[in-house]
C-alpha cells in the first residue's frame, strides 16, 4: 500500500465564510421575533386590563403596609392632614375614582411619590420639604391618581411577566441572550414613559378642575437635576423610565394650550 501525502483542506471542516453575517442574521431575526412577541403581548395585556376588577389588583402585589411612615412630629401630622384634604379635593373631580384612596408619608430623603396598588399613595418626606405650593402638590397627587386611572400597575405587571418570560427563554445562551433581554427591557421603558406622560396629562386635568389654571403645577420638575451633555440627554431619553423633566413640562404646556386651560393664576402657598 502506498502512502499518499496530502494536505488538509481548509474548507471541509471549517466554513470559509465569515461568521459575522451569520451572527447578524441570527441576532436581527431573534430581535424581530422577540419584538413581535413583546408588542403582541403588550397589546393583549392593554386590552385585557380594563376587565380585571380593581378589588383583585391589590391582592396580586406584595404587602407594603410597613412602608407607611407614622407621623412623629406635629409638622408631619399637619402635613398628612393637608395631604388627605388635598387628595379628597382633587379626586372629587374624577367621577370614576376607586374606593379606598389614601395618602400617607414615606420616610425617604429622595423627593418622590409612589402609588401602590389598591389605592395607597405615599409621598416621601424629602418631597414634603421640596414642595412649596398646593398646586404643585396637587399635581403630584393627580399624577399618581393617573396611574390608577390608567391601570398602570396591572400593565407594568404584565410587562414584567413578559420580560421575565423573554429572559428565561434567552437564559442559557450567554451574552447574546443577555443583550436581547436587555434590549427588550429598554424597549419596555418606552411603554413606561408613555404611562408617565398619560398620568401627567391626567394629573394636570385634575389640577385645572380644582384651581382653574395650570400655574405652579409643574414647578416640581424644575427642581430635578437635568442631564448636562447632549449625548447624556439623548441616552437618558431612551434609557429612562420617566420622560426627561423639561420635556414633561413642555408636553404639559402644549396640553394646556391645546385644551385652552388658563396658564396665568396664583399658586396657593403651603404653610
Amino acid at each position, binding site marked *: 500500500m502506498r502512502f499518499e501525502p496530502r494536505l488538509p483542506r481548509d474548507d471541509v*471542516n471549517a466554513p470559509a465564510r465569515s461568521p459575522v453575517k451569520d451572527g447578524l442574521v441570527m441576532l436581527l431575526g431573534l430581535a424581530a421575533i422577540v419584538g413581535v412577541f413583546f408588542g403582541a403581548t403588550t397589546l393583549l395585556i392593554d386590552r385585557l386590563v380594563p376587565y380585571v376588577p380593581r378589588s383583585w389588583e391589590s391582592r396580586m402585589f406584595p404587602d407594603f403596609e410597613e412602608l407607611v411612615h407614622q407621623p412623629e412630629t406635629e409638622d408631619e401630622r399637619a402635613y398628612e392632614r393637608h395631604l388627605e384634604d388635598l387628595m379628597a379635593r382633587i379626586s372629587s373631580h374624577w367621577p370614576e375614582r376607586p374606593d379606598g384612596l389614601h395618602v400617607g408619608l414615606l420616610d425617604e430623603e429622595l423627593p418622590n411619590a409612589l402609588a401602590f396598588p389598591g389605592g395607597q399613595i405615599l409621598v416621601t418626606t424629602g418631597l414634603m420639604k421640596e414642595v412649596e405650593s398646593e398646586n404643585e402638590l396637587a399635581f403630584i397627587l393627580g399624577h399618581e391618581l393617573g396611574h390608577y386611572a390608567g391601570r398602570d400597575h396591572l400593565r407594568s405587571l404584565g410587562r414584567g411577566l413578559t420580560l421575565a418570560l423573554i429572559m428565561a*427563554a434567552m437564559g442559557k445562551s450567554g*451574552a447574546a441572550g443577555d443583550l436581547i433581554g*436587555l434590549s427588550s427591557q429598554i424597549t419596555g421603558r418606552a411603554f413606561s414613559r408613555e404611562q408617565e406622560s398619560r398620568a401627567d396629562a391626567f394629573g394636570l386635568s385634575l389640577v385645572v378642575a380644582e384651581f382653574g389654571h395650570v400655574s405652579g403645577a409643574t414647578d416640581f420638575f424644575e427642581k430635578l437635576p437635568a442631564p448636562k451633555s447632549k449625548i447624556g440627554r439623548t441616552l437618558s431619553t431612551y434609557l429612562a423610565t420617566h420622560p426627561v423633566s423639561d420635556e414633561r413640562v413642555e408636553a404639559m404646556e402644549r396640553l394646556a394650550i391645546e385644551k385652552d386651560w388658563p396658564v396665568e393664576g396664583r399658586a396657593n402657598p403651603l404653610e
Partner: protein
Amino acid sequence: MDTATLIQLLVPAALLVGAYFIGSSIEKKHYRELRTREHASRRFITVTFPYEPRDEEIVASTLVTGSVVISVDYFKRFLAGLRMLVGGRIKSYEPLLDRARREAIMRMKEDARAGGYHVISNMRLETSRIASSSGNNKGTAAVEILAFGTGLKLARRRPATP
C-alpha cells in the same frame, strides 16, 4: 442617566468588536503558519493503522504525542449563544476546533521527528473537555485536543545470515 444600563450595553459591544478583530487576526496568522508547517511535513508518514514496513524493519518504537488546549473568545461564544437558541452549525467554533486538531497533529509530528522517528503508526485523536465550571454557560470552557500514536524507527533489513 442610567449609567448601569449604559455599561451593560457598551461593555459587551466593545468586547464583541475587540474579540472579533483580535480573534480573526490570530486565526488568519495561525492558518498561514499551519499551511507552511503542514506542507513541510507532508511526506512524514502518519497513518491510523499498524504500519508494516516493506523493505525495512522496525528497530525502535515509542509513544509520540501532541496536545493543544483551546478556549473560545467572547465573539465566538456570543455567536454560539445565538446558535443555542435557533439551532444549526456553530460556525464560529468549527475553525477553532479545526485549527486545534491540525496543530495537535503538527506537534505530534514534531515530537516524533525530534526523537528521530521515521513513521507514526496507529495515530489517534482525542478530545476532552477540561474546564466548564459553573454550568450556567458563563464559566471558562476549554477543550484539549490530543493527537498520539506510535513513533517507529526503521532500518534497512540486513541480509539473511548464511
